[in-house]
């Protein structure tokens, strides 16, 4: 019962506001569907493809384009040591260790190259999808608002059938 119309508390302020709005609509000060249009406009803005996301895609694309696809290398360690005989040990061990490291580095670089190629393809595809969508959304927004203006104009034309 609490939700039935007769139990809604009487609010003279709300009633007065509604009356004022109705009067101004009749006077022609307010366009007929002003409230609905404002709410629809907000909904369109909220659901629009976010510019921030497009900017993030552009950033990611730039970062991927500037990545070194073969970033790994065997570090060069100077064959010196403060320990007695350390330099000799370095010289003896370095070629063997370097050879093994070189193989690991080569595998990592192959993986990085493949990953770079895929990341490039993904970011290119995202950019290609995002830009036309943003353009299309603004075009649809513009068309929707244009249509709303036409609808308002048509609604404002007096009905000739009822006159004659």
């Amino acid at each position, binding site marked *: 019962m609490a939700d039935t119309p007769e139990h809604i508390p009487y609010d003279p*302020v*709300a009633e007065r*506001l*509604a009356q*004022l*709005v109705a009067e*101004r609509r009749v006077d022609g*000060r*307010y366009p007929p569907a*002003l*409230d609905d249009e*404002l*709410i629809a*406009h*907000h909904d369109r*803005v*909220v659901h*629009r493809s*976010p*510019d*921030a996301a497009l900017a993030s895609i552009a950033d990611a694309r730039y970062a991927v384009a500037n990545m070194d696809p073969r970033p790994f290398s065997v570090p060069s360690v100077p064959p010196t040591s403060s320990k007695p005989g350390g330099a000799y040990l370095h010289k003896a061990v370095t070629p063997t260790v370097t050879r093994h490291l070189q193989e690991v580095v080569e595998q990592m670089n192959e993986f990085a190259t493949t990953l770079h190629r895929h990341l490039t393809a993904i970011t290119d595809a995202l950019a290609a999808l995002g830009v036309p969508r943003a353009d299309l959304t603004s075009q649809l927004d513009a068309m929707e608002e244009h249509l709303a203006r036409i609808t308002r104009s048509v609604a404002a034309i007096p009905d000739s059938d009822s006159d004659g």
Partner: protein
Amino acid sequence: MAESNGAVIMWRAPFEPAARTERIVQAYHVLVSFLRDDVRLVAVGADLDKAYRARLQEEVNELNLTASRFASEGEELPTATITLTPSDIPEGVGPTALAEALHALLADRENR
């Protein structure tokens, strides 16, 4: 249409969807477009949702509300004619009715 200079509506709420700042933006649009054009809107609050704030700014730009401003806590703010928070706005009141309420409230404060 102008009634006085320098009226300021101060909206105090965090920038997050739950605050529904768009309601005051829409009402402000109606107020300055159809009732009086000498009012500024200042929305001030914590940036809890930057994407929401960006969307609101986009909406404000598209409605061409040049006398509105989003501010952060701690910024220098103008003296408010009226200050509102989300709990001041009843549910079920549309932008035009809310604009009428703001219009009446501003006139009341200015005539005191």
